[in-house]
């Protein structure tokens, strides 16, 4: 993974000093609440329902074991012994004291981590595929491009006060696990006519109150122009994005209002002045970035070693875990393992101090000391030898990370909701737990196959409810918490926003409603058909009829 040069480290150290000074001036009364709000948000510090929440950046989801141990130490010394993986591959602390945040940043800086631009109206942490570099369906490793974008967007002087937040995702795989069409900018790595790396750039996607699928603004952009093109898009957005209404301030509203053709014209007019300048990425820089992501020192192995085959045959639980939680790998003899942070009765994405230490230790012993966070709020060990999978599984079980439910109904994406977040209309974690308890039969879950269920506690949509095959949105009705259910959302290549099934439901009825929806699927499905395909074939009517039947 990327390793800081002296230069990167100096920038980070200067940032810690700057933020310490800002915090001191705020505590001395020299900065107003409003002024400090903008500064602390650009540093990921929210003031939440119970205490401040600090969001720490995990650039494109990559961590090493030293960093994870530091995250564990911080959770122990500055929080209540746990941390929370977010839906944008970051990690959040829910109980730090505002006064102590500079000390936390100093500790993070000592392991090349920070909280820069994890919130606020600026360019946020760039995200990508959690299987980057190991996926069998990718054109090339997207991470060097992510790092190029990370450096360009970090403290960009022109784009710190955008109309609204700005999220960029990069994808290089056939299946698009980064959901790029629901980002402000989606960068898709493609090959041009000669087979060389190029980019399709998508713009104006997003969730929130107005979910919109992104549109393509340019095709087969040569790599040297990547940053100048992004800069042109950002400049057009910074100048013309709405600033009068925060709910209409995202770039998706601008793109919709202008139409993608007119938007493209503006971008290209701006870009003419930026391209073919010092901004062009030199080939040497691209190669330098690629050099930070070499293949690990893989052993020469074959797929399906005898010990793996034997253990799978004798242990159905292990076999199920391989099928659900392990992913095929580019390198023969290896698999990528997803640690499920979705055990029943644990808030999705939550980890304790001890668990973080355990993850670091497992990464050192099984996966070259590297860990990835996923936008589905799980953790991945990307390079595990197949002949060590049984040993790893045996260690994961007592830790509670071996729940074999990845991609299943109970692998719920869920925001912190009303239990923690001051924006939320309703709780979301207890809804996830209710559903996980209802669907606790793993064999039944496997029979149901891939179903994405996403829960947001309000329409800001941090739980990505719009793109769940089943989406649940908490709404407030005269002070009571209700839940609106949508069906048919999808985040992959054929990205779609789900449709609302009808009037919302009372909290206690949700598990029953989901059961009825699943029953309809089981009755209507044709052999091997996924929930999403069945829904697309039979439509909303049979689901609606069952759910609202007297």
């Amino acid at each position, binding site marked *: 993974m990327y390793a800081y040069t002296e*230069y990167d480290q100096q920038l980070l150290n200067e*940032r810690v000093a700057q933020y310490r000074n800002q915090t001191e001036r705020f505590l001395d009364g020299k900065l107003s609440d409003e002024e400090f709000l903008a500064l602390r948000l650009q540093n990921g510090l929210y003031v939440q329902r119970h205490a401040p929440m600090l969001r720490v950046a995990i650039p494109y989801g990559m961590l090493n074991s030293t960093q994870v141990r530091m995250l564990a130490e911080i959770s122990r010394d500055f929080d209540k012994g746990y941390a929370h993986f977010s839906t944008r591959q970051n990690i959040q602390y829910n109980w730090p004291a505002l006064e102590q945040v500079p000390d936390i940043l100093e500790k993070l800086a000592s392991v090349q981590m920070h909280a820069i631009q994890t919130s606020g109206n600026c360019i946020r942490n760039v995200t990508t595929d959690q299987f980057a570099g190991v996926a069998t369906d990718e054109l090339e490793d997207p991470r060097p491009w992510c790092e190029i974008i990370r450096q360009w967007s970090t*403290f960009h*002087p*022109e784009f710190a*006060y955008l109309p609204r937040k700005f999220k960029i995702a990069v994808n290089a795989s056939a299946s698009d696990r980064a959901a790029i069409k629901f980002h402000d900018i989606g960068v898709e790595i493609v090959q041009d006519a000669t087979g060389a790396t190029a980019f399709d750039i998508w713009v104006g996607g997003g969730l929130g109150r107005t979910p919109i699928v992104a549109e393509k603004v340019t095709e087969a952009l040569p790599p040297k122009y990547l940053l100048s093109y992004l800069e042109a898009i950002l400049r057009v957005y910074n*100048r013309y994005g709405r600033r009068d209404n925060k709910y209409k301030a995202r770039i998706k509203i601008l793109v919709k209002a202008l139409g993608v053709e007119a938007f493209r014209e503006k971008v290209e007019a701006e870009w003419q002045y930026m391209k073919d300048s010092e901004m062009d990425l030199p080939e040497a820089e691209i190669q*330098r970035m690629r050099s930070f992501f070499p293949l690990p020192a893989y052993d020469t192995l074959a797929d399906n070693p005898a010990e793996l085959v034997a253990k799978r045959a004798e242990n159905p639980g292990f076999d199920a875990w391989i099928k659900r939680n392990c992913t095929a790998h580019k390198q023969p003899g290896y698999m990528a393992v997803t640690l499920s942070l979705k055990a029943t009765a644990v808030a999705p994405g939550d980890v304790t101090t001890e668990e973080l230490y355990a993850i670091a230790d497992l990464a050192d012993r099984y996966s070259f000391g590297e860990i990835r966070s996923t936008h589905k709020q799980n953790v991945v060990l990307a390079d595990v030898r197949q002949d060590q999978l049984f040993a790893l599984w045996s260690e994961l079980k007592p830790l509670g990370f071996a729940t074999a439910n990845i991609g299943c109904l109970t692998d719920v994406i869920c925001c912190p909701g009303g239990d923690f977040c001051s924006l939320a209309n309703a709780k979301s974690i207890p809804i996830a737990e209710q559903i996980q308890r209802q669907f606790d039969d793993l064999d039944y879950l496997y029979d149901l196959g891939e179903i994405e269920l996403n829960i947001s506690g309000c329409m800001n949509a941090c739980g990505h409810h719009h793109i769940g095959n089943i989406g649940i949105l908490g709404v407030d009705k005269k002070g009571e918490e209700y839940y609106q259910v949508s069906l048919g959302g999808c985040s992959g290549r054929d990205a779609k926003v789900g449709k609302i099934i009808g009037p919302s439901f009372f909290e206690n009825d949700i598990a029953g409603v989901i059961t009825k929806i699943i029953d309809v699927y089981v009755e209507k499905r044709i052999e091997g058909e996924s929930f999403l395909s069945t829904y697309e074939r039979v439509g909303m009517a049979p689901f609606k009829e069952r759910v609202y039947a007297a």
Partner: protein
Amino acid sequence: MPRKIIKDRAIVDDSYTQVTDVSQMPASGDILVALDLLLENPSVLPAQGGAWDGKIGIKVTGDVEPEALVEYLDKVDLIAIEFPVFRDGRGYSLARILRDRLGFQGELRACGDVLRDQMFYMQRCGFNSFEPRDDRSIEEALNGLSDFTVTYQADAVEKRPIYLRRP
């Protein structure tokens, strides 16, 4: 007493008189005129090479189209960009267009809700003078220009991104 501003990283007296009403035009000296006022009263701006003995500046807001300023670029010594609230980032892009694309060489000033914590970014976008808000210490604001010694991107001052100047 003239107002203090920061110019070229030093605290200096502001030599400009801000003209908000045509009837109160000073007889001489440096004047700063709002673009709107100028458009309503084109004769306010002394003719190029005319008899005016002072410098001339125009004041604009971040949403102005740069094309509207082209005709003034070689007639004025100062362009002041007003930040109505510090969160309004349009002035940063306007500054970069003025410097990078239109090649404006004169004084580029940030005024309005100008605070220490935004000034480092402003400087990189091409501002070389600042009117920090009256209720804040100008000495402290000056420190804001030195928050960082390292940067990643190309900007209005340093044309080379990090990859062209990394040691």
